[in-house]
Each structure stands twice: as C-alpha cells, then as structure tokens.
C-alpha cells in the first residue's frame, strides 16, 4: 500500500494509506478503536473497485495533532478537514467507517450530507441502549481487548500484539503506551458512555446507508443493529457470521463483497 502524510488546515498531520487506481471512485475508510492493523486485505479488496484512502486519526500510528481534538464537533470537523486535504470535496466520496470511525463518519454525514456519497457503518459506536450497556473498554486489561474485539482468538493473537496474553514484557508495555495514546484520544468521544447524542442528529442522515455487523460482536452486540435500523429506516442491514467487532479483519472477503455490492 502507498502511504503519504497530509496536513489539515487546522494543523493535524495525518498519515493516509492508499489502495486502488486514482481514477476509480473514491472511498474513505475510517478505522476503528484499535487503529489500522497490519492486515490490509479488506482495503486491498476494496481497492480492486475503488480508490481507497485510509487516514489515521490523530493519536493513532503516525498521525499527530490529537491535542487539537477535544469534543465530537472537533472530531467531525477533522474528518471533513481530511476530505479537504485529500481534495475529495467535489467527488462525494463513499465513507466506510468502522467502530469509532463509524461514529465519526455518521456525524460527518449528518453535518454535511451534500459532501459525501454513500455511507457504510461497520460495528459502529454512537448509540447507547441502557439495557445493553457496551463493556467499558477503558477499564480493559490488555488481554481483554483480544477477547472482546475478536470472535477468533487466533486472529486476535496474530493482529493485536500485546492485546493478548504475551510473555514479552516490552511488547506489553509498548501496547499499553500506544493504547493509552489511541484510546486517550478516542476517549474524548467515547468516555464514559459512548453516546454524544448522535441519535438526535440522525434525521439529517439522508444519504444511502449500509449497516453491517459482525454477528458475534461482543463489544457492541446485535441489539445495536436493530437500533440503528430503527433510527435509519431507509438503511440496508447485513450481518456477517464468524466475526466479532473486528469484522474487517475477521471476514474481509465477505465484508468487501457486501460493501462492494452496496456501493456499486
């Protein structure tokens, strides 16, 4: 994958991964809670049909400027700023948001429905059901990330070094430090309850939307799919088996097919 760094007007420096032909229809993939993991198959598959751009949120990987982002509006405007920096404002890109990236993508679609094409929400944060509380990721022990995020623990061990039970002390400490930076940033929109009242803005979400979920998501359980569907009655809904919250890493082929079919 190609990578480059862009700077937003606000001053955040954002690393962007790219797949696919530049002249293909643009698709922005917004990563989840744990950032962009090493496995890029989902993006490569989408790259066969689309020009895929995957920006890293500040606080994640090599992107910086997380101190500029304090509340939901900051995160949403940052998302729009990245579209400007990538020169995508006139092209109405598709937004494919996973996990916390889905929450931000949905906010962007509410804020500026005229600036984006279609919207895909994968195991997205953003809603809260009192009878189905989402586990407190901020109190997770490192090994719990693997357990809650992945359906297949073997995949968790491969993809979340440190986020499983590691013998290697340096690896564990690196995970703790990187995780503190990532979730410290995401915590500004997720802590202590991952609900920034998106639901009252969803009346503005008029673009075509696909809601797609890992059937075994332990973090944001299936009840949330029903709630999204209720709030977005025009949306298409799909569940993919043998996947947890990390659906793009657990079932990349099935997910890419579903997303491709919806966007084409």
């Amino acid at each position: 994958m190609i990578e480059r760094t862009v700077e937003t007007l606000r001053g955040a420096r954002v690393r962007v991964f790219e797949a696919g032909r530049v002249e293909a229809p643009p698709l922005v993939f917004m990563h989840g809670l744990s950032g962009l993991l090493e496995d890029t198959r989902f993006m490569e598959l989408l790259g066969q049909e689309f020009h895929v751009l995957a920006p890293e949120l500040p606080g994640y990987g090599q992107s910086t400027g997380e101190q500029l982002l304090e509340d939901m509006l900051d995160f949403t405007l940052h998302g729009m700023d990245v579209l400007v920096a990538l020169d995508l404002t006139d092209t109405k890109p598709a937004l494919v948001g996973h996990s916390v990236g889905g929450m931000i993508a949905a906010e962007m679609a509410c804020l500026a429905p005229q600036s984006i094409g279609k919207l895909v929400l994968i195991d997205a944060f953003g809603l809260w059901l009192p009878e189905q509380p989402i586990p407190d990721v901020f109190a997770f022990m490192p090994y719990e990330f693997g357990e809650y995020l992945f359906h297949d623990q073997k995949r968790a061990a491969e993809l979340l070094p440190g986020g499983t039970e590691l013998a290697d002390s340096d690896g564990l400490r690196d995970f703790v430090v990187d995780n503190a930076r990532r979730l410290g940033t995401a915590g500004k929109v997720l802590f202590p309850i991952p609900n920034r009242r998106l639901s009252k803005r969803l009346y503005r979400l008029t673009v075509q939307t696909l809601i797609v979920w890992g059937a075994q998501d332990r973090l944001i359980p299936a009840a949330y799919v029903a709630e999204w569907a209720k709030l977005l009655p025009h949306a298409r809904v799909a569940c993919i088996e043998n996947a947890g919250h990390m659906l793009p890493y657990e079932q990349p082929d099935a997910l890419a097919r579903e997303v491709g079919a919806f966007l084409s």
Partner: protein
Amino acid sequence: MPWPELPDEFGSRYRSVWVDLPSSLFDPVRGNALYHEYMDQLEYADQLGFDGIGVNEHHQNGYGLMPSPNLIAATLARRTSRAAICVIGNSIALYNPPIRVAEEFAMLDVISGGRLVAGFPVGTPMDTNFCYGQIPALTRDKYAEAHDLIMQAWAADEPFAFDGKYTQLRWVNCWPKPIQKPHPPIYIPGGGSIETFDFCLDHDYNYSYLSFYGYLAAKGLMDGYWERVAARGKDASPHRAAFAQIIAVAETDAEAERLYSEHILYFYNRCLHVFPGFLDPPGYRTLKTLSATSAARLRRQYLGERAALTWGDLVESGTVIAGGPDTVRQRMEELITSLRVGHVFCLLHTGNQSDEKTRYNTRLFAEKVMPGLRGMWREWGDDERWWIHPLEQRVRPAVEREPALR
C-alpha cells in the same frame, strides 16, 4: 475511614474494593456507629495536641467512607478549637461548577476561625474517571482551569466573568471569602510527575506525597522533588513538602505486632485490592510516565498472583512504621530527615482497627513520639508559609461558651 467489615474472602470473591464493589456490603446501621467513631477519633487527636486533623475525598471505595470530606470537616470545625482542619482535599475537576469548592472551603475557613488547609488533588483515576465520569485525557486540563477559577474567585474584590473551556460563569463573586489571606495554605497531593512539582513551585504550594508504601520507597521520588526545587532556585524549606505514613505504636515492638498486625494486613490485603484495569485509563497519565512504568500488573496471571503481604515484609520495607516508642521515633526521624518533610500525615487508624486500639495508638504517639520530633527543622521553625494563620479570638459554639444554656 475504611469500611471494617469486608469479608475474609473479599480478595478472591470480588475483583475490586473500588468503583464496582457491591454496595450491599455497606450496612447503614453499622455506618451510623462508625462515622461517629471516626469523627470522635479525629476530635481526640485535636485534644492530644496534633497540629492538624485530616480528611480526604474518595468515591465508591471500601476503604474510604468520605465521598464528601467537607461534611466531616464541617463537624470538626465546630467540635474542635485548635488543630488545623486539613482537607486533602477536594478533587476540583469534579465540581460543577468548581466555584462550589471556593465557597465551601471559604465556609470551612470562616467557621473554623481560619484553620483550613486546602488540598486540591487531581484525584485518582478510580474517583475522577471511573466513578465521576471525567474524560481521562482532559482531566488535567479541567483541573488546571478549576484551580484558576477558585484562586481568582478568592483573590477578586469585584464580581468578574470567567470564560473557561469547561466552566463559563458570567458572575463570579465568591461569598463568603476565607479568613486566611491571600488564601488558606494549599496542599497538592502528587505522585511524582515533574509537571506537578513545577505546578507547586510556580505557585509556592505544598507538595504532598500521599503514599501507602512508606518512606523508604518514597526516597527516590522525593529526591526528584528536591532536585527540582533546587533547579528552580527555590529555597529548601522542608515545609514545602509533606508525606503520609502509616504508624502503629505500642509499648514494645512485639506488642505492636500483636496489637496491629491483623488490622494493617486487613488494609493492605483487602482495602487496597483494586482491579488493575481501573488504575490507568488510557489518557489519564502522560505517555512519558507510562513508558517508565512496569506493565507487569496488567497480565492475566497477576490477578491470581497478588500475594498476601506479611507483617515482616511491611515493617522491614518501611511500608509501615511500627513498634515501641523508641523504634517509632527513630524511624520517624529517619523519615523526616531523609525525605526532608516539614509535615507528616500520621495515619494512626488503619484497616479494621478498633476504636480502643486507635485511641491507644494515637495517645502513645502524641505522648511518647511526637515531643521528640517537635525540635526537628529548628532552623526553619519560623517559616509559616505553609501553615494556617487562625484568628486569635475564635468564636466557639454557644453550648461550650455558656454551658448553663443546656
């Protein structure tokens, strides 16, 4: 103010003494007796001649029954006449708006006749983030703003507008104001970050290291503090710093073990049984601090491994200072000299210690240990920058002034 009725198997049955412990373990009827017992003990310390009596703030916590230290401090302000009332402190990022702290502290200072020591902790992650819902990465910023608001409110002679990021008030007009001018002595509990050292030195506040792990373990951190004091060109007054120490005095070393061992072990093995996932929410600590911290406690096997501590471990490591009066005095001298502290928070009630033993411990310390420590730091004896300045003539409650009215 620990809850003394945590079951024997607490550590294996429950994951944490803090945040998510079952509230069914609290018995309000037992609590009625207990609150009075603890407040009586603090009043007793005033009668015995301690310089100050202290309270602090914790939430959803099996070793602390004081979500609101100001309530306890208010009763102490009425029922005592001499000792400083040390509220160490109010977690100022948790009050909405934080002007509440300026008002309540002013009330305490006025009611007590100028005896308030005002503590401003950032607060533990358990209290601040998990129990009171503050966003970890923004907690310190919110704390700094709350501090600015409170200090400006105390200093201002006219109403003013405060346009903060977290608090906006069109009319800030603190009413009442504290007796002590420009403000009561301010103590900042810290855990070793250079940012907190500098914050204290910028404002000439006392730096208080409230550790439960004893003076030997604290040496490195306090050396770092004093190096920073020197680097900043500040004088080395020991009153700039305070330390908390668990102390258990008896007639002999052997008697101390016999009397206090079970209660101190109750404290370390049950009251400090905190789920490690609550200790470090992402964003609370700086990445630099985290990089220097061992992550070993975040392994799964650690949960099964939290080994029970023994009396021998605790005394040898200086985690607790325990023994006959001579042993305790000698160790206290070591503590005061090696950490260079002008104030010690003497923790004389520990775990599920009975009222009788607590009074015994407190009295022995006051009579047989404290007098020997009074003469230390003689060269800084007239440095009162970090101590209370009460009114000479303080009004007492009517029942004490005119007993006939009863």
